[in-house]
C-alpha cells in the first residue's frame, strides 16, 4: 500500500523540479496528481493547510480541533458580511469536510455551457470520467435504513406531495459505513516516489518568463523555531487547483492570465439557507447521516432551468444553535428539542454575479449579492421546504431568517415572503463556490480554454470549480473530479 509522501514541518529550504506542480490538494488536485503520476509523471503539490489522516480525524475528540480543517476556521464572509463561504483547507481540501455527495452535472447545464461558451465537452468523455471517478472513490446510493429518521421526514413529505426526490449518491463504503474522500481514494494510492506533498506551505509567487511558468515559490513557517523556509518548484507544467476564490487570488496576486480582466469575475456561490422542522416525537437526527435525501422537483434536473434543490441535512449542535433563531435562554429552549428536529437546506442555482478581488493586503475579498431572481428562488425554496415538512407531520417549522420566523401550518407560508430574502434577512451559507476563472473558447471573455489551460500562459492550467462558467445547480464535487480526470488525460496525451 503506497504511503503518502508529505512534508508538514520544515527545517530547510526545498527545491524541486517535477514534471507537474499542483497548487492545492482538493477534489481536483488529488485526481490530477494520481492520474498524472500513474502515467509516470513526477508531481509536487503545495497545500496551504495541514495534513490529517483519517486516523487523526478519528482520534480528535474536541470539535474545535476539527475546525482546523476549514479555511479561517470556517469563517470567510463576503465583503458585505451577508454570506459565509465555507471551504476546506487541508490535504484533501473540502472533500475532507463535506458529506461526499455526488451528482452528475445536469444535462441542461452542460447544453447551456456548450451554446453560451462553446464548451463541447463530449458527453462520452464526461461519462467515462464520471465512471472512472465513481469506481475510484466508491460511490453508492444511500439506503433508507442507513440514513436516519430526520432524512426520512423529507422523504415522507415529498412522497405525499408527489415531488421528484430520492436518496443521494455518496462517496461511501456502506459495509464499513465510512465516507471516502479524495485524499484516501486518490492521493494515498498514488506512487509516493512520484507524488510529493508540501503541506502547511502557501504557494505565493508564480514566476512567468517567456510566457511560461518557470518557478512557483511556496512559503512555510516553522512554529517551533520561528523560522521561515521556502519551497521552490521549477515545473514543466503548473496547475492551480486551490479552489474557487484561492485560485483567482493566486492569479490576481501574480497578475497572471488576466489581460482581459476576467479573473475573479462570474463567481457563483450556490447560496443556501436552512429550514428546521420540529416534530412531537423524538427522531434522533444525530444518530443518522449528515446529508442523505434530495428533492429536485424545482431544480434544473427536473425543470431544465435554474431553480433550487432541497437537501436533507443534519448538523452538530454548534451549527444547529446558529441556525436556530433567538438568543440566550430562548435559544437553549430550542436546543433542548435538538433530537426532535429534521433539517433541510435550500441550495439556490444562482446567477454568476459575484466577484473576487484583492484587498490592500493582497488577500481575496468576495463581493456578492443575491440577485432579485435568486431571492425569489430562495423564498420559493423556503416555502416548498416548509410545505414538505408540514406534510410530513411537523409541529412547527423555523426558517433560516435572522428574525425569528416560526410557522405553525401551511396557511402561514406567506410569512416567508413577508420576511424576504434580501441582505440582512436570511442566514446564508455557501459551501459550493464556483466560477471566478471561467472556462470558454473565446479568449476575450474567459480565463481558461476547454482543456483548462489558461489562454495566456502556455504551461499554466487552472482546474477546480473556479473554471465552471456558471454554477451547476447540484453538489459539484463529482463534476470537479470528472473534469480533473479529463484534464489529466489531456495533459498526459499532450505533454512529455
Amino acid at each position, binding site marked *: 500500500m503506497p504511503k503518502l509522501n508529505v512534508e508538514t514541518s520544515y527545517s530547510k529550504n526545498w527545491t524541486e523540479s517535477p514534471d507537474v506542480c499542483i497548487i492545492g490538494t482538493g477534489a481536483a488536485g488529488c485526481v490530477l496528481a494520481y492520474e498524472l503520476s500513474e502515467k509516470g509523471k513526477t508531481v509536487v503539490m503545495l497545500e496551504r493547510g495541514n495534513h490529517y489522516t*483519517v486516523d487523526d*480525524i*478519528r482520534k480528535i*475528540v*474536541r*470539535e*474545535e480541533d*476539527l*475546525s482546523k*480543517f476549514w479555511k*479561517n*476556521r470556517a*469563517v*470567510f*464572509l463576503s*465583503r458585505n*458580511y451577508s454570506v459565509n463561504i465555507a471551504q476546506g483547507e487541508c490535504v484533501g481540501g473540502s472533500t*475532507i*469536510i463535506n*458529506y461526499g455527495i455526488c451528482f452528475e452535472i445536469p444535462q441542461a447545464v452542460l447544453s447551456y455551457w456548450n451554446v453560451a461558451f462553446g464548451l463541447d465537452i463530449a458527453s462520452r468523455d464526461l461519462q467515462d470520467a464520471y465512471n472512472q471517478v465513481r469506481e475510484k472513490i466508491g460511490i453508492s446510493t444511500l439506503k433508507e435504513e442507513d440514513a436516519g429518521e430526520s432524512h426520512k421526514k423529507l422523504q415522507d413529505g415529498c412522497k405525499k406531495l408527489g415531488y421528484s426526490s430520492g436518496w443521494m449518491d455518496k462517496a*461511501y463504503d456502506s459495509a464499513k*459505513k*465510512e*465516507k471516502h474522500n479524495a485524499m484516501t481514494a486518490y492521493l494515498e494510492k498514488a506512487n509516493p516516489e512520484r507524488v510529493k506533498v508540501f503541506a502547511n506551505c502557501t504557494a505565493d509567487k508564480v514566476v512567468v518568463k517567456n510566457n511560461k511558468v518557470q518557478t512557483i515559490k511556496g512559503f512555510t513557517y516553522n512554529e517551533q523555531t520561528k523560522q521561515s523556509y521556502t519551497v521552490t518548484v521549477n515545473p514543466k507544467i503548473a496547475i492551480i487547483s486551490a479552489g474557487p476564490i484561492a485560485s483567482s487570488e493566486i492569479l490576481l496576486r501574480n497578475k497572471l492570465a488576466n489581460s482581459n480582466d476576467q479573473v475573479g469575475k462570474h463567481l457563483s456561490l450556490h447560496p443556501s439557507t436552512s429550514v428546521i422542522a420540529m416534530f412531537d416525537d423524538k427522531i434522533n*437526527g*444525530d*444518530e*443518522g*447521516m*449528515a446529508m442523505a435525501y434530495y428533492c429536485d422537483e424545482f431544480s434544473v434536473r427536473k425543470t431544465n432551468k435554474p431553480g433550487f434543490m432541497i437537501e436533507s441535512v*443534519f*448538523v*452538530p*449542535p*454548534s*451549527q*444547529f*444553535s*446558529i441556525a436556530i433563531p*433567538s*438568543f*440566550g*435562554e430562548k*435559544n*437553549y429552549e430550542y*436546543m*433542548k428539542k*435538538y*433530537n426532535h428536529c429534521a433539517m433541510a437546506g435550500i441550495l439556490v442555482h444562482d446567477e454568476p454575479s459575484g466577484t473576487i478581488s484583492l*484587498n*490592500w*493586503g*493582497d*488577500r481575496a*475579498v468576495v463581493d456578492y449579492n443575491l440577485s432579485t431572481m435568486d431571492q425569489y428562488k430562495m423564498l420559493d425554496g423556503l416555502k416548498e421546504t416548509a410545505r414538505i415538512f408540514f406534510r410530513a407531520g411537523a409541529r412547527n417549522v423555523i426558517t433560516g431568517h*435572522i*428574525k425569528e420566523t416560526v410557522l405553525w401550518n401551511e396557511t402561514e407560508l406567506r410569512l416567508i415572503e413577508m420576511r424576504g430574502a434580501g441582505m*440582512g434577512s436570511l*442566514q446564508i451559507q455557501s459551501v459550493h463556490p464556483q466560477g471566478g476563472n471561467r472556462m470558454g473558447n473565446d479568449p476575450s471573455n474567459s480565463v481558461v480554454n476547454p482543456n483548462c489551460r489558461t489562454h495566456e500562459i502556455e504551461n499554466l492550467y487552472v482546474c477546480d470549480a473556479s473554471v465552471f462558467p456558471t454554477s451547476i445547480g447540484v453538489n459539484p464535487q463529482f463534476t470537479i473530479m470528472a473534469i480533473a480526470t479529463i484534464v489529466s488525460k489531456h495533459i498526459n496525451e499532450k505533454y512529455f
Partner: protein
Amino acid sequence: MAEYDILTIIFSTFISGYLAGFMTVKTNHILVIALGKIWTSGNGQQRYIPVGAAISAVYLGLLISVVKDFEFHFYLLLFLAFVGLYVAGVKHSTKRFGDSIEIMEKIIELTYLLDKNDEKQKQAVSDAQDFSKEILMTMPPSIAEALLLLFFFFDSAFAVFFVNLINGRFTLQRFIDLSKNEQRDYIEAWASNPFLFVAIQAIKGLIGFSYYTGKNTWDGIEYNGKMLRNSYLA
C-alpha cells in the same frame, strides 16, 4: 501674550491631544474594517506613531501661526503636552478596545452560566470563552476587528443609554457595570430590536458555536457526539 487666553490654549491643547489620540485608534479600527486590510489594530499601533507625529506637527504649525508671541520654551511645553496627551488618548482607546475580549467572555457567561454551582456548566462556559478567543485569532483580521468593535460598541455607555432609552429605561453605565438582570434585559433589547438583531446575530454566531462545540454542553441537549463523527467520517 495678553491677546490670548493662556488657559484656553492650554485647555484646548490637552483636549485636542487626547481626542486626537483616542480618535486615531477608532479611525484605525474603522479603516481596517472598511478597507478589509490585513493589519490588525495590534500591528496598526505602529501606525499611530507616524500618524501622531503628523498630527503633532500640524498642531505645532497651527500654534505657531495663531499664537505668534510665545517664548520658545512655552511652545515646546505645549507641544510636549500635546504629544503626551495624544499618547494617553491612544493608550486609553486601545485599552478600551482590549476590553472587548472581556466583554465577549462576560456575554458568554451571562448567556450560558445559568447555575453557578453546576461545575460542568462552569467548565463549558470556560471552554467556550477559550475557544471563542481562538476563533477570533484565526479569523481574517478585518472580520475579527469588526466583531471586536461590535463588542466594544455593545459595551459602551453610549449604546447602553440609547438602546435602553428605546425601551423606556434610563441608564448611563457600561454593559459590564450593569447588574446581572440589567445585562440580561439589555441583551434581550438588542435581540428584539429590528435594527440591532443582525448585529446580535453575529455575536450569537460566535458565542453559540463556541459554546456548543464543547463536550460539557452535550448532556443538556441529549447529544452524544455521534453527529460530529458522522459529519466527517460516515
